[in-house]
C-alpha cells in the first residue's frame, strides 16, 4: 500500500514562545524547530503499516526550504521519499488541505495519514478539510489502526470509551497521542536520508491559491501575573479579598 503522510515544521515544545514586538507573530529566529509531535506519530504508524503490508511511504510538508530538515527527519525514520511544497509565511489549514489534495491527486496513495493537529496553532482542521475536499472517508483521532485487505479499522478515544469505525481505502486518518511511540531515527537512517529524493513544488505549479482565508490581526502575550502580597492577619486578607479582588 502507498501512504502519504504529512509533517509540519513547528517550534520545539521546550521553547517558551515570545511574541514579536509588532504582534505579527512569534519570534522564530534562533529557535529550534522540530517535527510536530502528532505528525511524528503519523509517520511511525505509516512505517508500521508499510512494514506489515509492504508499499511506500511518501512524506509531504509545506513551508520554506528549511522545512527540508523535518522531511529528512521523517526519511531518517524510514520513509521512502519526500515532497516539499514551497510556501513562505503562514499557510492556513484550508490552504494546507487544498495543497495536500493537489499532491494526493498526483500521487494517488491508498491512505493519507496526518497528525490530529499541529502544536503551534492547534487548529485540528487540515485532515477533516482534506477528506471533505477529496470526498473520501475520514477517521480522525485514531488511537489504533488496523488494515485488512482494503478495509481500515480505526479505534478512537471518545468521552467515556472507545469507538471503532471502519472504511474502505482510500481514506484519511489523523493520529492521536496514544496511537504509538515514534521510533528513534537510527544514525545510519539519518545518513541514508540524505540520499533520498525530496521533490519540490510551488503552490502555483499545483494550481492552488494559498492566500489565507483567515487573517491573524494581532498576537499578544498573556498579561504578566502580579506578585503576591503578604498580609499581617486574616481580617486584612478577608478585607482584600472582598474589596480588591472582589472574590467574596
Amino acid at each position, binding site marked *: 500500500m502507498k501512504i502519504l503522510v504529512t509533517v509540519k515544521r513547528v517550534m520545539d515544545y521546550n521553547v517558551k514562545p515570545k511574541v514579536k514586538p509588532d504582534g505579527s507573530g512569534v519570534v522564530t529566529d534562533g529557535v529550534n524547530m522540530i517535527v510536530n509531535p502528532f505528525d511524528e506519530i503519523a509517520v511511525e504508524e505509516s512505517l508500521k503499516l508499510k512494514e506489515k503490508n509492504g508499499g511506500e511511504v511518501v512524506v509531504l510538508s509545506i513551508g520554506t526550504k528549511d522545512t527540508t*530538515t523535518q522531511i529528512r527527519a521523517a526519511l531518517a525514520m524510514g520513509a521512502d521519499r519526500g515532497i516539499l511544497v514551497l510556501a513562505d509565511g503562514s499557510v492556513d489549514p484550508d490552504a494546507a488541505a487544498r495543497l495536500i489534495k493537489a499532491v494526493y491527486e498526483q500521487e494517488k496513495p491508498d491512505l493519507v495519514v496526518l497528525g490530529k493537529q499541529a502544536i503551534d496553532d492547534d487548529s485540528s482542521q487540515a485532515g477533516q478539510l482534506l477528506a471533505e475536499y477529496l470526498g473520501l472517508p475520514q477517521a480522525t483521532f485514531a488511537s489504533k489502526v488496523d488494515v485488512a485487505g482494503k478495509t481500515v479499522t480505526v479505534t478512537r478515544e471518545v468521552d467515556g470509551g472507545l469507538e471503532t469505525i471502519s472504511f474502505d481505502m482510500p481514506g484519511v486518518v489523523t493520529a492521536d497521542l496514544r496511537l504509538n511511540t515514534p521510533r528513534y531515527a537510527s*544514525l*545510519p*537512517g539519518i545518513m541514508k536520508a540524505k540520499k533520498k529524493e525530496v521533490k519540490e513544488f510551488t503552490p502555483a505549479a499545483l494550481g492552488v491559491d494559498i492566500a489565507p482565508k483567515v487573517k491573524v490581526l494581532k498576537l499578544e502575550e498573556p498579561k504578566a501575573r502580579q506578585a503576591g502580597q503578604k498580609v499581617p492577619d486574616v481580617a486584612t486578607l478577608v478585607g482584600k479579598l472582598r474589596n480588591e479582588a472582589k472574590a467574596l
Partner: protein
Amino acid sequence: MTTRESRCVGYLFSDRSHETIMTPEMFTAEQRALFGAVAAFTEKEVVPRRKEIEAKTPGLMAALLKKAGGIGALGLDIADEHGGSGTDKTTSMLMAESISREGGFAVSFGAHTGIGTLPIVFFGTDEQKQRYLPALATGEKLAAYALTEAGSGSDALAARATATLSADGKHWILNGQKQWITNAGFADVFIVFAKIDGTQFTGFIVERGMPGVSIGPEEHKLGIRGSSTCTLILENVPVPVQNVLGEPGRGHRIAFNVLNVGRLKLGVFAVGGVKSILRETLPYARERRQFGKALIEFPLIREKFATLLADLYALESMGYRATGAIDAYTAETGKGMEALEELNIESSILKVFGSELLGRAADEALQILGGYGYMEDYPLAKVYRDVRINRIFEGTNEINRMLVPGVLLKRAMKGQLPLMDAFQAASASVSLPEDVVDRATVQARTLALILTGRAAMQFMQGLEEEQEALAALADIHQAAFGLDSVRRRLVQADNQALHLPLARAYAIQEMDRLIARAGRFALDLGGAELHAELAPLLAPLPVSRTAALREVATRYVERGQYWLGAGTVA
C-alpha cells in the same frame, strides 16, 4: 584559496593562517541531525534512569548499551562493510558529546566504542573484523579493554601477564590479572595485553567464554558507580593464535594509538559534561532566592557561570579543530590511525584541559547550589564524584602534560616540524596587535616558542627528567592552542557578535593564567634576566576582566543556555 588544516600544532605557526580550521559553526545539517538523535536518546533513555544506573541495577547498563546499538550509535567508527556506518571523526566525537549526560553511562559507552572496539578496527585482520565488528556495532556483543594491572598503571608496558605458545602451536596460553577493567561485568570481548614469553608485549582478543576466564567482584568506586569495574582473571586461558591482535611484540602500538583516541574523546566528552552541568545549575540559580534576590542576580554567581562558559567555548573550539584536522589528514592520506597519531599533542592538551575544566565546573556548580549541592538528593554531588576519574584515566594528567612538550620536541629533532627555525625567529619584541584576542594569541604563541626553545637548549637531553619544566610548558602550549583556536573560530564566524563576548572573556582569563605560569617558569629557567626580556609578553591584557565576564553572563542569562556549538540552531 584556503585549505583545511590537517597537521599538528598549527597554533605555533603564524604562517599557517591561510588554513581554515574546523569549527562547530561548520557542522553539516546531517551532523546536527545525528547529534539531535543521540541527544534525544540520552534524554529519554539514560537521564531518567540515573538513579537506577548509579545503583548498578543488574542488566541495565548492558541493556542501555544494546539500545544505543539499536539506533546505530555504537557503529560510528566501524566501516560499512563490517556493519557500522563509518563516519568521520568529527561526527563520532559529536556523538560522544551528546551522550555524555550521565557519567557511568558515558564511561561504559566510551569503553565499548573506543578502547574496546577500536583496537580491532585499527589492527584487526580482515577475518577478525568480520568475526567481531558486526556484533560490536549492534551491541549484540560488548567490549572491554584490559591493560592495567595491580603493579602497572601509567607504566603500562611493565605488565606481568604472560602468553606462552601451546605445545601444538595452536593456542597462546594466557595467565595474569587485569585490574579495574571497565565493562568487565558484562563484556563478551576483551582486548588483553600480555607478554609473549615474558618479554614481547602483545595484544590478544579474549572472549568471556574461553576456559580459564573469570571476573572478579565489582569495585566500590568514588564515582561513575553505574559503570562496571572488575578484575579480569586469566588462568591458563587458551587463546587461538588467530586471535593475536596486530603483530606479536607490537602491542604498545595498539595501546598507545588507542589512547590517542581516548584522550581526544575525553576532551569532547568534557564539552558535553560541562554543558550538562550548566544546564542543571542555571534553573537552581534562577529559582533560589536569598536576601530577596535570585542567586543569578549576584555578580559572584554570574562570574562563576561566565568563567566556565568562556573556557567551555575554548575547549569546544580546540576539540573540533582537532577532529577536523584528523578528518582532513585522513581525507588526504587515507590513513585514519596515522591522523590520530599526528594530532596526539592536541589530544593530550584536550584531555588535560577538558578534564580539569569539567572538574572546576562540577566544583563551582556544587558551590552555587551551596548546602543543597552537598546533599545526595540533588544531582551535583554525584556529578562531583563522577568527574574526578577524568583526571586519572586515559593517562593521568601528569603523564599527558609530559607528553605535550615531549612529543613536540621529538618531532622537532627528527625534522618533522620546522620548530627550530620558529624558536629562532620568535622574539619578545614582536609587535602586539591592538585587539585583545589577537594580542593574547600572539603573546601566547611567542611565549610558547621562546620558552620551549630555551628549555630545550638549556636542558638538552636532560629535559625528560625536568618534569616541572615539562608540565609548565604543557600549560603554556595549552594556552597558545586555546587562544589560537578561539581567535580563528571568531575570525571564521559569520555572526561574530555571537562569539565576541566569549572570545574576549576567554582571552583575558587565559592570559591571566598564562602570565602566572609562564612568568614563574621564565624566572625558574632564566632568572630575572629572562623574565625582563619577556616582559612585553608577560603583560596582562589592558582591559577589564570584570566587564568582559559580566557581558558573557548577561548574554547567558538572556538566552538561558550556552548559545553556540552542537545542539543549538545553526
